[in-house]
């Protein structure tokens, strides 16, 4: 584990480089939506492995339960009944952290080391360093992190970093009954997806494709979609996700520049004083009032 702690690509609110000499395999989870039956085994395995338990909620007139991601539900199935040219399709997508190569959450996080990106691609929250500001929620292009009401820390899928660290697949991957979720090196996962896409195209899904959005530098959780041209059909999977321009402004160069500006004001003021001296009452005026 101590070695693992050095295999870091990025660390939130840290401007110097992390030790990163080691080159570990870049991993990825591939979710083949076309094989998914929406059984929620992944949801259960996730909670079981991570020792979280959500509330026993209510039925909201749909199969989705829990209805949304929470600090205890790090993954949920989202069900969409969509009419396409093939008739009715029940598009079921496992939602959760995409483990972006350019993570918006990490970019937004003000707490040093509360979010890290390991060299293998996993973006992990270190709740011990989290201050609970929720900036990561603001920064995420996929609306994933959730703030716990209990401890005001933010939680999300860790891609089972603890399992991956010892060479195992994530819990959801292992449990998936139909093999809709697979795990391996990112390279292998892309190859696996390509095989699946050939099969889907043979079955008439002309627009089948891989979802690995480049707007966030690619992701370490990818989807095989029957309709890759319309990801929004899958309960609003963003078509072209990117770290929002506002987040860019907010967390980009603006802040060092603003800091510099403040520094300049201080320095400028000092310089002004040195150059011009204080603004005092004129001697003439003084005299007048002495008398």
């Amino acid at each position, binding site marked *: 584990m101590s070695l693992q702690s050095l295999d870091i690509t990025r660390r939130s609110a840290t*401007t110097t480089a992390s030790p990163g000499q080691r080159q570990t395999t870049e991993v990825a989870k591939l979710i083949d939506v076309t094989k998914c039956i929406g059984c929620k085994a992944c949801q259960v395995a996730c909670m079981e492995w991570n020792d979280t338990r959500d509330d026993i909620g209510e039925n909201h007139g749909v199969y989705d339960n829990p209805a949304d991601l929470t600090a205890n539900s790090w993954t949920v199935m989202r069900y969409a009944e969509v009419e396409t040219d093939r008739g009715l399709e029940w598009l079921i997508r496992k939602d959760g952290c995409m483990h972006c190569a350019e993570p918006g959450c990490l970019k937004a996080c003000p*707490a040093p080391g509360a979010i890290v990106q390991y060299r293998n691609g996993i973006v992990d929250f270190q709740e011990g360093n989290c201050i609970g500001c929720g900036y990561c929620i*603001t920064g995420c292009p996929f609306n994933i992190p959730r*703030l716990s009401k209990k401890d005001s820390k933010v939680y999300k899928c860790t891609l089972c970093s603890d399992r991956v660290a010892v060479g195992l697949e994530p819990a959801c991957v292992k449990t998936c009954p139909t093999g809709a979720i697979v795990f391996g090196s990112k390279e292998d996962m892309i190859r696996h997806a390509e095989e699946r896409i050939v099969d889907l195209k043979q079955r008439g899904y002309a627009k089948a494709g891989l979802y690995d959005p480049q707007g966030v530098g690619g992701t370490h959780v990818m989807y095989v979609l029957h309709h890759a041209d319309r990801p929004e059909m899958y309960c609003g999977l963003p078509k072209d996700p990117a770290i*929002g321009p506002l987040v860019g402004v*907010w967390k980009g160069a603006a802040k060092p520049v*603003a800091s510099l500006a403040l520094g300049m004001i201080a320095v400028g003021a000092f310089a*002004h004083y040195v150059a011009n001296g204080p603004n005092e*009452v004129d001697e003439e005026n003084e005299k007048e009032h002495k008398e």
Partner: protein
Amino acid sequence: MKPDPDKLLRFTTAERINHWLVALFFFLLAGSGLVFFHPFYYPFNQLFGGGTWTRILHPFFGVAILFFFTGMFFRFRKSSVLTPTDWEWLRHAKELARGDHRNLPEAGKLNGGQKLMFWSLVCCMVLLVLSGIVIWRAYFSFLFPVTVVRLAAVIHAAAGVVMIALIMGHIYLAIWTKESIGAMLHGWVRRAWAKQHHPAWFREMTGRDE
């Protein structure tokens, strides 16, 4: 302090207390806010009991400053109305910075610069409060769509920087203009000082123009 016939009362006790309360919370807010602004300032969190405490306290400081600043606003809003003379004053402010006040029109109790500062601060406060509510994660953020939250975060940061810059200027000018800090500390200024810096006010207070 007993009234000194040589001196003029510039700020009442209530005004002074109000000012310093706002100042106090400004420093708390700026210090805690900068923690989230950039990693460079993160160590400031130690002043507030760590990162999490800083996150918890900052918005409550905001609530406090909103309360006191509102008080200030009602105290000074009338005396801060900008007149044509103030604009004229502002046009000559650059000369003043170089120490040359010959062409400066006579300032009242507050000069054009001070008034402008007041309204700038009011603007910043409005922006900070509104955007601050939107990004107050514990109570309000879930009410707004993420794009609004993102916009609010940018506005909050920007307004915060502007406000800090303004206050830095304000502080420097207070230091630069000798004796003005005393005016805010004990309230009294010498007649000469008043005549020098706020001639119109001086006349108004003394009825004299020498």
